[in-house]
């Protein structure tokens, strides 16, 4: 049986395949025909090399046509050293290690670049890199809405990337998420937990992230410079109006009243326990199948009255029949993620292109209007169809992009002029992201970096599973138990403080040493008792305490030596990651590469000296092993800058290295503080 490959299929054929959009497929602008691609049976997984090559070539041709049109010449391909560093940073999110560089140098295959791209995309390092990208886009945090544990959501995102879940499916799972947040595999509920209590904002975010469209203005008034009306906004919000976040412990009113009474009588901390258990055992996204929303009380346009009920209605495309019963999000998610949704596919294709090439074909990527034009419309159309052709398999899509010659070009010496469309004649010099900077420094410190894992939600999920079926009486007993233990813990704490006061006094009075020793002994015993009690008996504390299960290596004053993706999201405010502009994950795509003086201070006087050059780091070990000053210099250039030193550099640096014990550290420090380290060519 022979039929054309999906990549070569006319869009109309693809469109016909899906019900929702086939109603009015003619409203979708038909893109220009793409260059013909070779016929293959089907898209296999992984994509056959020839298919990748064809698609990459087609992209290169479209770029070239555009360059010809503008009388521009493409830069030559970057050399292996530059390419290797760039592709590791882009796909793995870190620089390559000495061993990885050696392996690549030893490979003499003519297809070694393409093979490397494929290998890297399937690696655990890529999960970290792509997670950072999604976390910035989705504002995914370790604590969602400042109160709910978000780890299950973060785990879900990582797993989706790891198993290469198609993007449309990923989005659909988030938009349709419901049920207990800690049910295994149900981490997509985090999408709604992130904006708990703010369903309107959640809709504005959804439209911006997945449709690249700004609807926020229309939340309060008709959009001043786009076509959206306030009614459009509320008609969209109607789809998720029945969706809410619950975090209640299901113990019944009577029990609750009894607990409140107890709380008032005694000093037991029942309320907090109820809240904490509610936020774990009771945490869920609930949908009540509501299919309408009320216009706000300050609705100000003549087409409807304030407070009038409004049925869900999609903001563009043919009207969707929304069933009177059932979860309206089903049709909404199907509409959103349908390949023919002209904005959904285009936006992710453009975002992926931007991630690889540095500049989107349409900029900004999330401010689409009807008259938005790509800098290279044919290429944009092709990429959109390619995204459909690979069925939203981002890894395949990325493999095609990273295999293009366009991606592999040498960097331009000139800075692209602000506001001018970029034609992709060369790569664009750019500063590493915060995550790339931190993760790259760690490759010089920690072995087997990509496999080092931080906290996950396993313990919390186990706690949920152990207790989720408890009835109200058991739950009440559990609340009392935990509160009781905490009360006891407080008493012990008080006792402990009294002992300390006694000890202080004994010290001041210059009491006999054995008196002090006795007091210290008592304090130690109390401390042990309290710790043991919490671990043994407070099931809530027990699961909190057991995260992370395995303790990661700690740096000197910087916390765990783990990749950005394995640290809390976002990292603490004074972390090197934040200094270098990691997003606070409060706003969509909020990371920054702006310079700040604290960045220089951080590299000059901080982590580089304390940990990268410190005893026990991978780099220090490599230096101890490398024989002679010249070899040390070579290893330093390769591990830090991914290239061999020039003859002149070799002469200068090996002299410095040979001159003193600190010589190699001076050179390493200097390379790590150089522009060449921080900027990706």
């Amino acid at each position, binding site marked *: 049986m022979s039929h054309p490959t999906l990549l070569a299929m006319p869009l109309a054929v693809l469109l016909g395949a899906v019900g929702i959009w086939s109603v009015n497929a003619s409203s979708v602008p038909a893109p220009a025909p793409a260059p013909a691609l070779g016929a293959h049976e089907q898209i296999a997984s992984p994509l056959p090399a020839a298919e990748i090559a064809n698609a990459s070539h087609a992209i290169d041709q479209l770029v070239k046509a555009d360059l010809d049109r503008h009388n521009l010449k493409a830069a030559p391909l970057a050399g292996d050293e530059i390419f290797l560093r760039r592709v590791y940073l882009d796909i793995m999110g870190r620089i390559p290690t000495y061993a990885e560089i050696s392996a690549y140098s030893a490979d003499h295959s003519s297809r070694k670049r393409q093979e490397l791209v494929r290998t890297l995309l399937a690696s655990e390092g890529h999960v970290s890199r792509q997670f950072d990208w999604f976390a910035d886009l989705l504002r995914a945090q370790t604590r969602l809405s400042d109160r709910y544990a978000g780890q299950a959501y973060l785990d879900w995102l990582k797993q989706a990337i790891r198993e290469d879940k198609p993007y449309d499916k990923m989005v659909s799972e988030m938009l349709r998420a419901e049920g207990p947040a800690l049910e295994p595999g149900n981490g997509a509920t985090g999408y709604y937990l992130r904006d708990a209590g703010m369903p309107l904002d959640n809709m504005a975010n959804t439209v911006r992230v997945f449709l690249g469209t700004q609807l926020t203005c229309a939340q309060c008034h008709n959009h001043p410079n786009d076509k959206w009306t306030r009614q459009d906004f509320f008609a969209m919000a109607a789809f998720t109006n029945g969706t809410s976040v619950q975090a209640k412990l299901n113990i019944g009113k009577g029990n609750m009243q009894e607990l409140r009474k107890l709380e008032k009588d005694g000093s037991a901390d029942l309320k907090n326990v109820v809240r904490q258990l509610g936020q774990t055992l009771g945490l869920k996204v609930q949908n009540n199948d509501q299919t309408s929303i009320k216009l706000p009380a300050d609705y100000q346009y003549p087409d409807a009255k304030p407070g009038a009920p409004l049925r869900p209605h999609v903001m563009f495309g043919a009207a969707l029949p929304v069933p009177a019963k059932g979860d309206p999000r089903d049709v909404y998610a199907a509409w959103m993620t349908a390949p023919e949704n002209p904005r959904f596919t285009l936006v992710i294709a453009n975002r992926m292109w931007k991630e690889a090439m540095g500049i989107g074909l349409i900029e900004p990527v999330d401010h689409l209007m009807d008259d938005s034009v790509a800098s290279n419309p044919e290429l944009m159309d092709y990429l959109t169809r390619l995204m459909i052709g690979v069925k939203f398999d981002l890894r395949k899509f990325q493999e095609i992009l990273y295999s293009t010659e366009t991606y592999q070009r040498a960097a331009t010496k000139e800075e692209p002029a602000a506001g001018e469309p970029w034609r992709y004649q060369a790569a664009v010099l750019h500063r590493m*992201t915060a995550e790339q900077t931190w993760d790259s420094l760690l490759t010089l410190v920690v072995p087997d970096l990509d496999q080092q894992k931080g906290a996950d939600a396993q313990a919390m999920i186990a706690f949920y599973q152990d207790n989720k079926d408890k009835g109200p009486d058991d739950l009440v007993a559990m609340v009392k138990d935990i509160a009781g233990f905490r009360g006891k813990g407080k008493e012990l704490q008080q006792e402990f403080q009294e002992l300390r006061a006694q000890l202080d006094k004994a010290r001041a009075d210059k009491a006999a040493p054995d008196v002090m020793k006795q007091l210290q002994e008592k304090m130690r015993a109390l401390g042990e008792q309290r710790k043991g009690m919490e671990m043994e008996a407070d099931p809530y504390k027990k699961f909190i305490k057991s995260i992370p299960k395995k303790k990661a290596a700690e740096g000197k004053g910087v916390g765990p030596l783990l990749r950005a993706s394995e640290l809390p999201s976002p990292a603490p405010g004074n972390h090197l990651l934040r200094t270098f502009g990691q997003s606070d994950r409060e706003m969509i795509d909020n990371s920054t590469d702006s310079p700040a003086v604290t960045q220089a201070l951080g590299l000059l006087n901080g982590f580089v000296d304390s940990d990268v050059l410190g005893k026990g780091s991978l780099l220090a070990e490599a230096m101890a092993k490398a024989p002679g000053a010249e070899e040390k210099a070579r290893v330093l250039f390769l591990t830090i800058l991914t290239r061999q030193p020039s003859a002149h550099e070799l002469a200068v640096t090996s002299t410095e290295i040979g001159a003193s014990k600190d010589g190699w550290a001076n050179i390493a420090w200097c390379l790590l503080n150089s522009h060449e380290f921080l900027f990706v060519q």
Partner: protein
Amino acid sequence: MLNRTANRLDELSRREILLSGARAFLGVSLLPLLGGGLAGSLAADEPRALAAGALPRRPTARNCIYLYMAGGMSHLDTFDPKPGADTAGPVTAISSNATGIQLSEYLPRLAKNANHLAVVRGMSSTQGAHEPGEYLMHTSFAQRGTIRHPAMGAWLGYFSGRTNPTLPMNITIGAGSRHPGAGYLESKFAPLPLGNAQSGLQHSARSPGVDQAQFDRRMGLVDSFNHGFEERYDQKQVRAYKDLYGEAVTLMGSKDLAAFDLGQEPEAMKTAYGDNEFGHGCLLARRLVENDVRFVEVRLGGWDTHDDNFDRVQTRAALLDQGLATLLQDLSARGLLEETLVVLATEFGRSPKINGNNGRDHYPKAFSCLLAGGGIKGGQVHGTTDATGANVAEQKVEIPDFNATIGYALGLPLDQVVISPVGRPFTLADKGKPLTNLF
């Protein structure tokens, strides 16, 4: 997401897209979100047309010390005592050195300095939970999932720029990571966060074991090594990093850095401010404004007194009383109080009703804040609450009004419309009206 050179393109194209529509819609000129903000663009030889009336008025304060009482400070037990009322609990009121102003007995030192204070008793907020309350107090806007608004320190940097070219102009001490920071403004306006006052400026001293000679030797190597790269890529972003390293080295060697070092204060001074984190924070704030750091926020937590309210408020108030009273005296003695606006803010007050745990619960309907120095007339009270402190009786002050007053003192253009990067128009204190009668 990727932030490359492209993001600058991104910002620009975004702005251009918005420009025409925004002009037509708002009838205002756009402020440059690129480059140096308003301050930067005025400093450059590139005059920009500003809408008439948008030019900043003459400020009454150059700098601002903003003390934030996190958790919701009980107004009844501090600045708005109600002696004799059922709701007063055991707290009595004491007279102050300003006619007609009584404070809680927990604030004996401040009572002796009330001549500096404008007590704003008619505060009222719309947010009764900590995070949104704190956000509203810092930004004048309700917290939203789609945008982050700038806090006052960022606005000051954006409109007015820094005075000391070496030190950061906006600093928070112990503020935590939830601080709204620069909001949608460029990240360079974000405050530099210090974990606590004693730790000083992170990484501003050479690493242990690296002496000046070795440091200089290393820097020399870096400079010569960078030379080739700078020639190959003669780009603004590369030059920015070259400048940055220059600035960092200057800062490391600067005597201004001593501003961060509390060790240079006599012990007696530390004792006067209080040998605790808040006291240290107030002392550091004074050192910083003395060195032309323009906005310093110091945080004192622990005001969320749902149980055991009176003991706990008394403990907190003692820290506040000592720190703030000393700060006012110290600033005044140094001639700095006239040009330094001191603000005391909190997210909400506490309920007049005393709950079953002898505590007070969240109460946004009526509470108190303070202003002092920086052109504010001392020894006055603005607004009153009723007999139990439950309702604002006169001169209600919404949070945007309070923030507009701070902006007014600092000479910031309250009416100037600024377009956020996604094209939404804002003013710095929403629609707040400054309390000009306080000046």
